[in-house]
């Protein structure tokens, strides 16, 4: 147990920070209620998926600069597919979009393995390409989303046997997030593939010598990142009801939240829970700054500064770890 706490101290600390921030929010704004929390989660949803995608790739020793563009592509694809289609068609569209994300991610991985161009350049190039693709699919924000998808992340659901006061603080958006991340992450973490992803990020040579198929693992890591990015894209379409071809601010945010969440740039260390908690912390800081009536533009500065400082801290820690 103590070993568990020690090893997950960073994530536990983040949780504590998050709860503290929640309490703080309640103090500065006594009106802050479950509904506000619900919208917080809804706003955090695309960020959470983006950071999940980024984390997997960073753990595998890479970086994915195309994550925001990939979300834009999948978002507009979903919006266009569902535009004017029946409610039931969304049942086809959703898996289709997820598969598309998986494949686009795999393309990233394959290009890295085959061309031997470093991941940072390949995904930078893909950033341009996917942005272009998104614009070709949908020139300006538009399209539509099936109603049930939109409703899915709104409000709460009553859980039998649990007090309404508690379920009120478990918004549907949170359930959607947890379920979809868990569906991918838990089996992965238990599989040999999951171990292999950590292994190639930790030490490519040792992984190779341990019999890990390095190239295949790398491709799959990028593909899974693509899958999460597609979830992020879908969540964008679900919350706005349309698709927007211009990528949101998810790239930098995903890197910063991943680092804040305990994923070390360079690979091998961290998980996916920490970064997602970090996303919530960053969103809550934003809310608090608004509540404290700080200029909303200054919020961008503070957020950006936190991110830069966190990334510098992360790089510094990685440097120390390497020289050890």
């Amino acid at each position, binding site marked *: 147990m103590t*070993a568990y706490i020690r*090893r997950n101290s960073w994530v536990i600390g983040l949780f504590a920070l998050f709860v503290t921030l929640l309490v703080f929010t309640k103090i500065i704004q006594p009106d802050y209620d479950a509904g506000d929390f619900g919208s917080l989660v809804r706003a955090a949803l695309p960020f959470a998926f983006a950071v999940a995608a980024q984390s997997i790739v960073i753990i595998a020793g890479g970086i994915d600069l195309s994550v925001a563009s990939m979300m834009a592509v999948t978002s507009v694809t979903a919006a266009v597919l569902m535009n004017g289609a029946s409610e039931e068609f969304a049942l086809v569209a959703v898996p289709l979009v997820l598969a598309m994300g998986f494949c686009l991610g795999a393309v990233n991985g394959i290009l890295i393995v085959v061309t031997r161009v470093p991941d940072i350049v390949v995904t930078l190039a893909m950033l341009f390409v996917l942005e272009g693709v998104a614009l070709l699919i949908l020139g300006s924000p538009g399209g539509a989303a099936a109603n049930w998808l939109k409703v899915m992340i709104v409000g709460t659901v009553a859980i039998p046997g649990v007090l309404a006061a508690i379920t009120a603080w478990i918004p549907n958006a949170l359930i959607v997030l947890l379920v979809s991340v868990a569906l991918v992450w838990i089996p992965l973490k238990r599989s*040999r593939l999951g*171990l*292999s992803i*950590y*292994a190639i*990020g*930790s*030490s490519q*040579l*040792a*992984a*190779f*010598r*341990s*019999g*890990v*198929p390095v190239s295949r693992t790398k491709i799959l890591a990028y593909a899974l990142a693509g899958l999460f990015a597609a979830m992020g894209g879908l969540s964008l379409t679900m919350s706005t009801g349309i698709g927007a071809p211009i990528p949101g601010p998810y790239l930098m945010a995903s890197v910063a939240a991943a680092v804040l969440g305990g994923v070390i740039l360079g690979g*091998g*260390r961290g998980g996916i829970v920490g970064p997602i908690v970090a996303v919530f912390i960053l969103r809550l800081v934003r809310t608090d700054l608004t509540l404290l009536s700080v200029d909303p533009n200054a919020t961008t500065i503070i957020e950006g500064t936190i991110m830069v400082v966190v990334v510098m801290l992360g790089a510094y820690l990685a440097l120390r770890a390497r020289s050890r």
Partner: protein
Amino acid sequence: MNALLDASGVAKSYGAVAALRNASLSVRPGEVHALMGANGAGKSTLVKILTGAVQPTAGRILIRGEQRSVGSPGEARRAGLLPVYQEPSLIPDLDVLQNLRLTQTPVEPFRDWVRELGVPALDLKDLARDVPLAIQRVLDLARALAVEPEIVILDEMTAALPADLAERVLDVVRQQGRSGRSVIFISHRFVEISAICDRATVLRDGETVGVVDIVPGVEEQIVELMLGEKIERRRRTTGPVSDAARPSDARPRISVRNISVGTKLHDVSFDLHDGEVAGVVALEGQGQDELFAALAGAARLSGGTIEVDGETLTMSHPRHAIDKGIALVPGDRAEALLMQRPVRENIALPFSAPLRRWGPIDMRRESEKVLGAIERLQIDTRAQGEVQRLSGGNQQKVTIARWIAADARTILCFDPTRGIDVRTKQEIYRLLRELAAQGKSILFYTSELEEVQLACDRAIVIFGGRVVDVLPAEIADEAALTRAAYGLARDAEADVGVLAQHPGTAGASP
């Protein structure tokens, strides 16, 4: 006799460079088989081929008489060949248990082996990176043994182990042989080899030159095999450097006192005088890399002092050494050269380093210095443009020319003649002697022992991170150096074996 593993005609070349020419290795069931050879004889390449980490260019590998291809570490594993490399191959960021799962190793046998090997309390939930390096190596071994492989390959297994662990490891290896499984044991330590091995295969220059049974006194025979005809050649070599200026009694240029670096170098002391070429001789990985890095300001001391011209120096960046006129020519040319830049920029690089020299370059003065150095070393610059297009020998000359142009007073040359042609080698020896004659001092690590008598005034021999002997050039022939480098005492001259028949070799000096 049915061999368990039979590799023959194995060769591997990287481009035009042959790392292995014609190696063979035959291991019987239940045998502990030593694989020996001097630096660069091809041991590690052969191991990498047997374990699927590298694909051979030619050769045949039979396991139990059947031809097997070992295309990847995974395939080698399935064929029953399991290596324990010098650097631990546990994934640092996974815990021990996860590492076992990754390689599909059963946990219970692993635990048994860990106990057997005498590892004190181990928590399988510990991250590999938190386990001390020595223990990691033992865990690596336990992990290999747990899957009951037919052949375990141990590469310098005991090198970094404390004595008690090493003892247990040797015990286990011996038992392994008795229980009918085979071990390929790579080591530089004769003591271990004579204690646990049945036979030894000796490699030289990428070829198998002999297979011997381990019997008392076989050491000399192995040394002779490793050296080959060189012993004959040695006798024809005349005394090398008798005319060279001998180190004076004056204050030494550099005096090294009790320095230690990490776990690799312990308590090393020696002096380097102006006008001297001091050779450093050591087997691979005995701490010589750390010694050179420390002198060049590229590695931190964990103990001891370095005095330059009588002044104690604390260095945290190579520029501190360079300010004192001490420059390192690293062993790997890729570490020294700007491969995509022209010769001129490579040689002139140190000129621009200080902040005050960031401005416009005096091209004429630079040309003078650069051309002077190019001429002095006779660098062939016909292949214009990038340095990577020069031949290996010319590249090496560029790394030295840089410090001639910069007029460094002390040059630390780390194996500068590795992998270059004979003529260039000769030129480099001559250059080193000339520099010494001009009053410069040179510390010269070489993996080719014959070079000591060709270029050095004396040889400092390092083994296991300590200075074990200092030999004057007159008696520092290959045989003497080899013995010293393997940690064999100088007075324990061979009275059996081939060396004994050539009294002139070892004891040439009065």
